[in-house]
């Protein structure tokens, strides 16, 4: 088992957002987490990756049987957890190349590997750029600075390809994307799916799941997973709306 979340409670400034989440993700699986706005989807992603503005008040998160909650943000990343941001941060003055090279080499160091040579690294960059269909000189620019919404999301998938995580959490990667960009992003994800890694795809709409076919769909509502099912659950939700879930509660 890759990820096991047991009775997770988390709050921000004393306000409880997650009220007992249970979730298991195995290698090779894609889990979709859906739900109305403000129910805790992004909070769940942030808590898994270790954002310290949230307090975990109860419960456990195990990753490869390791207790994640005692690890720092960067240690969790080096253990193989990646988050695609809903709002990727602009960092003027830091080039994507420098950013990724630092990240790749810190992760390698954590795993007891030598740093990658400049030549190897640049070759890897070129390969991964192709994977997410980046043809422009994007990588020489500052991280996300002046990028369009689509470019930012594509850049997230590019980074995911570079870092080769074992668990990728994509937080509303589809928001603000037109259909072409959505397809490129989804294709990137599909190419990166392997029997070894797992994905948690957080989305508000069913649309993304036409391109990234999930193995499981979970509905998050008021801080709890209230319904789980196969990929058909997403279609049902699309048809009946979230009110249908509320009525069932």
């Amino acid at each position, binding site marked *: 088992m890759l990820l096991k979340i047991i009775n997770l409670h988390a709050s921000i400034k004393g306000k409880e957002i997650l009220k007992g989440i249970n979730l298991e993700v195995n290698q090779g699986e894609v889990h979709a987490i859906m739900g109305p706005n403000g129910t805790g989807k992004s909070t769940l992603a942030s808590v898994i990756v270790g954002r310290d503005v949230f307090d975990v008040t109860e419960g456990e998160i195990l990753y490869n049987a390791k207790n994640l909650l005692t690890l720092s943000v*960067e240690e969790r990343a080096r253990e193989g957890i990646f*988050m695609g941001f809903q709002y990727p941060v602009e*960092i003027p*003055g830091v080039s994507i190349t420098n950013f990724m090279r630092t990240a790749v080499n810190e992760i390698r160091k954590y795993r007891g590997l030598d740093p990658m040579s400049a030549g190897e690294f640049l070759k890897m960059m070129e390969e991964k750029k192709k994977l997410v269909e980046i043809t422009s000189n994007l990588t020489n620019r500052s991280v996300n600075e002046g990028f369009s919404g689509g470019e930012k999301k594509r850049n997230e998938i590019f*980074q995911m390809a570079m870092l080769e995580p074992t668990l990728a959490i994509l937080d509303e990667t589809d928001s603000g994307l037109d259909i072409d960009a959505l397809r490129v992003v989804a294709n990137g994800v599909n190419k990166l799916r392997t029997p070894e890694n797992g994905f948690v795809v957080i989305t508000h709409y069913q649309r993304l799941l036409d391109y990234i076919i999930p193995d499981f769909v979970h509905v998050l509502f008021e801080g709890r997973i209230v319904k789980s099912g196969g990929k058909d659950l997403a279609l049902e939700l699309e048809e009946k709306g979230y009110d249908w879930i509320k009525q069932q509660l």
Partner: protein
Amino acid sequence: METKTINPITKERLLNLYQLNHEQLIADDTPAVRANREKAIASFNKLGFPDKKMEDWRNTDLSGTFEIGYDYPLLPALEDDMQKVFRCNIPHLDTAVIGQLNGWFVSKDVPLMELGNGIIIGSLAEAMKKYPQLVDPHLGNYANTESNGFAALNAAFATDGTFIYIPDGVKSEKAVQLVNVIQHRENIFIQSRNLIILGKGSKLTVVHCDDSYDHQPSFSNVVTEIVVGEGAFLDHYKLQNLNNNSTLVSSTWFHLEQEAKLESHYLSLNGALIRNNTYARFNGPYGSANIYGLYLMDNKQHIDNYVAVDHASPDCVSSELFKGILDEHATGVFNGHILVQRDAQRTNASQNNRNLLLTDTAKINSKPFLEIYNDDVKCSHGSTTGQLDETAMFYLRQRGIGEDNARMLLMFAFADEVVSKIAIEPLRYRIEDMVKKRLQGELQICEQCVLHCSTPENPVEFKIDVSKI
């Protein structure tokens, strides 16, 4: 070795020193320079040193550094000492590196270099003798000795420094590197004076470095007057890398004629106390001035940038961008004064000061000041002070980058906005490298000095490939 007594800096001591050494001080003066000297000492007598009661000095306290005590040599060091300092092979004329030791022009065997194209570079004292017709109309004409005590003191005492003259229409392809190294067996008080004249339509790049050789305390009072002639272009760099016991008050007057263009870069990497006074005056229309500053201070260091831009003529454009990172107990001041005069229509002036404070004990006083006597202007100013962006830190760390490296990346990126304005590529790479080292706490004094007066074990190496400039 004879040990001299060092004494605190006081107005009385300096006035007395002037009286005692009057004959020696005026020995090389032209009548005009001499008249200016007499006027300046009278003015210094009236003004004295600035103190914290003065608006422009409210947040910079010199009293502690005055009390350290200094020796006040009025003659250059012996040739022997110079050899010791400039172990390195000073590239001469063709590479246009100028060495100064304690403010004095070095290489008295060739005190004034005259190039085929009419460029003159060398000792200001020698230029006064040989080219009074070039020096007299300008020396002391811009530096305000009537209200600036340090400028008055400098005009009274300084007898040498660097002189650069670029004739009309001459575009100097090579950068001139003016390197002032401080080394003395006692704490030293230095008064140095430079004059740079760019003729009409000429072009020059000047890199002016202030370096300590060792950890001996020093106090430098440097005044530089720069005339940028009609349609001329000056790219100007100040690199400041002094030891943690040294104080530098560096005042530069830029006199910009019609359509003159100035790019100026203040890069303050180290020093106990640095005060940069920058005065730019548009003396004719259609001029432009971009003034950049970067300061990286830690420990108990103090940096004070005072920038005054005088829009005395219409249709001129000026911008200021000063950025600083203050760590530990470091303190900083930014005073920006933009004056738009009555007739300066269509002025476009902007001013920006941004600071990163890395600790609760680091402090910055940022004071933009616009004085506008005209309706038809575009002026803006902004000042921000903050900590590293928390969301950016999280983003970097989520990719596996440790906290220290994430901070480094963000600080470097912050500084790079100013560093990236450096037009000379080899110099930019060098400065980028120095900024990285400075942020990691690895930069040694002297390191950025192109003369690399390092130890004999460390072979001297020119990091800046001047041939490419």
